[in-house]
Structure formats: structure tokens, C-alpha cells
């Protein structure tokens, strides 16, 4: 009556499930996973930045399955997606979720060409989850031409209010100095903002990124090597949030 990993009984021959059995099995597994039905993603490329980052995290925790909750080392500026060597330690997460930018095309309208907009749909976050950390991540490529010794300042704003004209009410979240020769992922802390958006979804009006040169002139973010578009795929900007389960997860009664 005692069995461990090395004492497994192989009691049946592998066979294909009949369609009814398959449906029942799917229903059972979905129930265990806490999903009402199977997700049907519109786009499921695994080679964009967010899935690649999540895959890195998955591999990190799969290598240490004994850790009860996975730990994540927060990179501030790194060439690889997940680097366990440095930076602040984010723990106690039961779930990590990445969000793709909903703004499909870059608007090059005259009043908008020096800033980039990002918007993320947080409506899929389950009620029982509490955000313990969130980041906006954007890739900075190496740039040499024209700007050898010039630094840039990148600012990330939360949009507080939109109006019909070009005026916006913005809240500065974070500013960074950038050097042309630097390359890697920049991570901006969005923990407070995402908690606000979670409590008040109507306040989720997105983020604005603004680049200035050393003279305070607004510039296109691309000039500093910031990847704000869909290409290259593996360097697309995205948002990531870490969650902790708030209490016991209940499965639905069937």
C-alpha cells in the first residue's frame, strides 16, 4: 500500500480515446484547469516576444519543480528575456500573464509622431487573483548613426483622461536615460497602475511613451532604437503581470 515514483504499475495498454471519451476527458481537464471552455486564440504565434518571455519563465520554473511558488528575477535592462542573475526578486506568484499591445498600427499623425501609444486588455484577469507585480517591457536596439555621444530620455505616462482634440491628461510613471550603444529589454514598473486598472477598468486608457533628446526636443522613439512596432516579432513591446491566488480556488460544480 505504499508506492512512490519508482513503483508505478502499468496496468493498461495505451489506446486512442473514442470521441465521446475524448470529449469527457476534455471537459474534466478543463474543469481541473478552472476554464469554462477551451480558449480559442485568434493569433497563436509562439515566436513573438511575450510568448517567448513566458516560455523562458516556464522553463525556469520547470527546472525547479520543488519550489512551491515560482520566483522571478526582475531584469531592468538585459539582452535576454529572463535573467536570473540580477535585480529585484519577485516572489509569491501563482500565475503570470502577458498582454499583447492592442494598438495595431502606429499613428503618424502630426501631433502624435513623437509619442507611442500602448493599450492592454486586463479584463481576462480572474477575480480571485491579486496583482503582486506588473511591468511594461520594451526593447532597445543598438543605434550608432548620428547619436554617438548623445543620450536620450524616455518617459512613460499613464493616460488619465482623453479628449476629442489632441489634449491628454497624463501621469508620469517613470523616466530613463538611454545611451545609443545600449541594447536590451527595458522594464517599467506598472504594479500600481495595473492595480488601478483592475479596480476601475474604465480608467484603463493606456500608456504613452515619449522620447526626448539631450536638448529636451521630442524625437521619434525609433531614433533611440526603441522597438515600438510589430517588427521584429521577438522584440515587440508587451506587458507582464504577476498574480497571487487570493484564497482557495473553487472549481465550478458540475
Amino acid at each position, binding site marked *: *500500500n505504499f508506492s512512490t*515514483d519508482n513503483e508505478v*504499475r502499468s496496468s493498461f495498454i495505451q489506446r486512442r480515446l473514442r470521441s465521446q471519451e475524448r470529449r469527457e476527458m476534455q471537459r474534466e481537464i478543463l474543469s481541473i484547469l478552472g476554464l469554462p471552455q*477551451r*480558449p*480559442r*486564440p485568434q493569433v497563436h504565434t*509562439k515566436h513573438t516576444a511575450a510568448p517567448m518571455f*513566458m516560455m523562458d519563465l*516556464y522553463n525556469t520554473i520547470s527546472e525547479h519543480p520543488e519550489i512551491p511558488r515560482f520566483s522571478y528575477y526582475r531584469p531592468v535592462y538585459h539582452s535576454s528575456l529572463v535573467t536570473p542573475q540580477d535585480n529585484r526578486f519577485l516572489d509569491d506568484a501563482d500565475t503570470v500573464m502577458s498582454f499583447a499591445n492592442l494598438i495595431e498600427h502606429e499613428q503618424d499623425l502630426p501631433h502624435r509622431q513623437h509619442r507611442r501609444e500602448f493599450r492592454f486588455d486586463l479584463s481576462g484577469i480572474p477575480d480571485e487573483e491579486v496583482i503582486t507585480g506588473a511591468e511594461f517591457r520594451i526593447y532597445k536596439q543598438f543605434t550608432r548613426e548620428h547619436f554617438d555621444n548623445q543620450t536620450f530620455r524616455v518617459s512613460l505616462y499613464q493616460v488619465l483622461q482623453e479628449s476629442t482634440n489632441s489634449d491628454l491628461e497624463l501621469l508620469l510613471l517613470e523616466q530613463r536615460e538611454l545611451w545609443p550603444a545600449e541594447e536590451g529589454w527595458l522594464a517599467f514598473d506598472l504594479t500600481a497602475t495595473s492595480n488601478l486598472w483592475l479596480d476601475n477598468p474604465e480608467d484603463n486608457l493606456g500608456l504613452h511613451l515619449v522620447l526626448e533628446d539631450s536638448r529636451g526636443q521630442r524625437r521619434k522613439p525609433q531614433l533611440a532604437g526603441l522597438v515600438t512596432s510589430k517588427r521584429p516579432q521577438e522584440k515587440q513591446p508587451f506587458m507582464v503581470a504577476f498574480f497571487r491566488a487570493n484564497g482557495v480556488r473553487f472549481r465550478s460544480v458540475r
Partner: protein
Amino acid sequence: SAHGHKGRHSKGAKPQRTVQDAMRAVEAAKENLGVSKEGCKKHELYVSFRDLGWQDWIIAPEGYAAYYCDGECAFPLNSYMNATNHAIVQTLVHFINPETVPKPCCAPTQLHGISVLYFDDSSNVILKKYRNMVVRACGCH
């Protein structure tokens, strides 16, 4: 339940079965049958997300070894490491009163978690840790 009825049976009444009687009955049954049902053990059960046709939304893993527990929790349980004290008592009481007291259950005693990486409807990616998905050890409860 012991209520101090020892030696107080009325003449002509059916004698109450004792633990010793139950043990003898079990041994006799085993000898008569010539076989003993397999004990409580961990069995293979692999859940394949690929075979379920979910490759389009589950990124990793392809599946996982879930295992399950099955087998008989038969007397004597006290020689097994993983039977609870109560399961041992329950086995004995089952023999005394098989109609009303069931045998102990063969069930997981240790469970482990797995992590699943998947897309949601909005093509966001979710990495979730599910506890208690993999049977590590089985025992009688």
C-alpha cells in the same frame, strides 16, 4: 465500539464476531480463493494535451504524467508504511461489520503540482501553477 458486553451474551443468542474471528475469516478466504487482489498502488496515467487536440492553445507542456491510485486496501494494513492508523482500524471494523463499514480507500497521499503555459481567447499568454495535479504516492485512508 466496546461497551463492556464481554461474557454477557444471553443463552441462545448469536455470538458476537471478534477481531480474531475476522482475521481467521480473511485468511480462510484468501486460501480458498488462491489469489489475493492487488494492493493499493500508483498506476500510470498520462494526460496528453496533444492527443486532446489542444496544441493551438496549450504551449507547454505537451502533456503530463498524472498517475492514479487503485487497488485493494485489504487486511492486514499495519504492515504497510502508508496506511493511516485510522485505515488500519477501519479494515478491522469492516470485517466485523462489512455491511455498514466500508474498506479504507486507496487514494493519493502525496500530490505535486505542474505548470501550464497557454493562450487565452485574446492571445494573451498565461503561465499558471496548478497544485495537486500529479500523484506522487498512494496509500490507504
